[in-house]
């Protein structure tokens, strides 16, 4: 059951446990519009992470007293499948999942024109099917695509990526082992075109200089994923366009 833990996370030639360079992302595969029932949906694989996101809404609010008079109510559920991690996780929401649902909602909220849909609800569901570190970031990246796929007007896509410190080196996009054994993890979400940070968390230990270096690296990683996000969106809608034209 137990994974073998490496003794060192970075070798002499600056290669990480999975062979990456410090500033290298894991391979990413994104697909938009993967579920027929949802108003919008998307799927991402980032390294061994496999994550689905679906958006329902704008729709009527249940229970009704939760509705807001001046904007849409945004709700978000981040949830890990019991089989997504090494040791089975109880399907009941943990305190970690409740906190992450909150910060993810707050990371996506600034991007959405909620004021256009008063007295409605927009529900975002993020299901972690397989986890390998950095699930909140990949979850944000994929959820923002599901929102766009649902046709909800947005100021920008939100994209997230973590940086951190591993064996004394600042690295990009930590995997599970690096997150667990590393010295610090700094997840960041941004709206790249607006130069705005929408999520920022950190645990571990960083000096101010290291922090500055890490946040710059994380934002750089976000910008690279942003390109892939836009390609994935285009891929779906260009395919539809071609079908229509045929």
């Amino acid at each position, binding site marked *: 059951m137990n994974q073998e833990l490496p003794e060192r996370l970075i070798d002499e030639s600056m290669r990480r446990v999975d062979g990456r360079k410090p500033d290298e992302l894991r391979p990413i595969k994104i697909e938009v519009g993967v579920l027929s029932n949802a108003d919008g949906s998307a799927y991402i694989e980032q390294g061994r992470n496999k994550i689905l996101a679906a958006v329902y809404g704008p729709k009527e609010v249940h229970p009704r007293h939760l509705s807001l008079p001046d904007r849409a109510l*945004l709700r978000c559920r981040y949830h890990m499948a019991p089989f997504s991690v090494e040791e089975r996780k109880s399907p009941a929401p943990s305190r970690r999942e409740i906190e992450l649902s909150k910060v993810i909602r*707050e990371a996506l909220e600034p991007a959405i024109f909620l004021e256009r849909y008063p007295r409605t609800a927009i529900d975002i569901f993020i299901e972690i099917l397989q986890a390998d570190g950095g699930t909140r970031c990949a979850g944000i990246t994929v959820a923002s695509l599901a929102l766009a796929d649902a046709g909800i007007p947005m100021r920008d896509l939100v994209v997230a990526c973590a940086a951190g410190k591993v064996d004394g080196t600042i690295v990009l996009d930590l995997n599970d082992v690096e997150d667990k054994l590393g010295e610090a993890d700094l997840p960041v979400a941004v709206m790249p075109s607006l130069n705005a940070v929408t999520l920022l968390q950190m645990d571990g*230990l960083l000096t101010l200089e290291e922090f500055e270096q890490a946040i710059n690296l994380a934002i750089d990683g976000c910008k690279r994923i942003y390109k892939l996000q836009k390609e994935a969106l285009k891929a779906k809608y260009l395919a539809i366009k071609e079908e229509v034209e045929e």
Partner: protein
Amino acid sequence: MTFSLSVSRIKQRQIAKLIADGKRLDGRGLTDYREIKVEKGVIERAEGSARVYLGRTQVLVGVKIGIGEPFSDRPNEGVLTVNSELVPLASPEFEAGPPGEESIELARVVDRGIRESGAIDLEKLCIIPGKKVFIVFVDIYVLNHDGNLIDASAMAALAALLNTKLFNYEVVDGEVKIKPGFTKLPIRNYPIAITSAEIGGKLVVDPWLEEEEVMNSRITLIFEKDGRICAIQKGGGGTLTKDQIIEAAHIFQKKAEELRKLVVES
């Protein structure tokens, strides 16, 4: 501007307008804290306790010590658990019932500061490796909510831990027997949380309730004793710029130093 039921539009505008000029409704500067008072040892039944007043915000933290099993991946370490209760008597907005996301976030941020700074020497809390360890229960009890619960709770938690005693024990045939007398809980770091609200493009330190109602977002940095950051949490559905964050980190680092003195020496 955010929609708020409890702060009128006119007051919201007033708060934002003053902040744009570098002033605040209660007369503080943008980086000033409200008056802070720390009282240690206020609950005799608890192994450690402290009450912190941050202006009109009041937080009580009680620490109870138990004996239990360690986590299987850390057989030689004691266990820390942090919980928070937003007690209904503290605010008309709080309701009884299972903890909501605000309460869970509060507890988890305070927990992160203590854990990541290594504030408690958990290895010294091991009694029988893999079998029996001390468990440190930190319970945050918010008594009056007038904003900035994170900083008040983090200070109260640290003050309570500094005040916590462990009972003496001996191991007889694999059983833990409690002996008379106490030792101090081994504390080796002092994490201090500094929170700001972003209002109209400016950051104001230690927001009170009405500023929290108006803010776009909130950012907390927790610093350990050598000035390194040990935890960060952004909150609220607004945005910040990278430059704002980096500038804040430098200002907050100095603030943390001031507050730490106050909590440790109280």
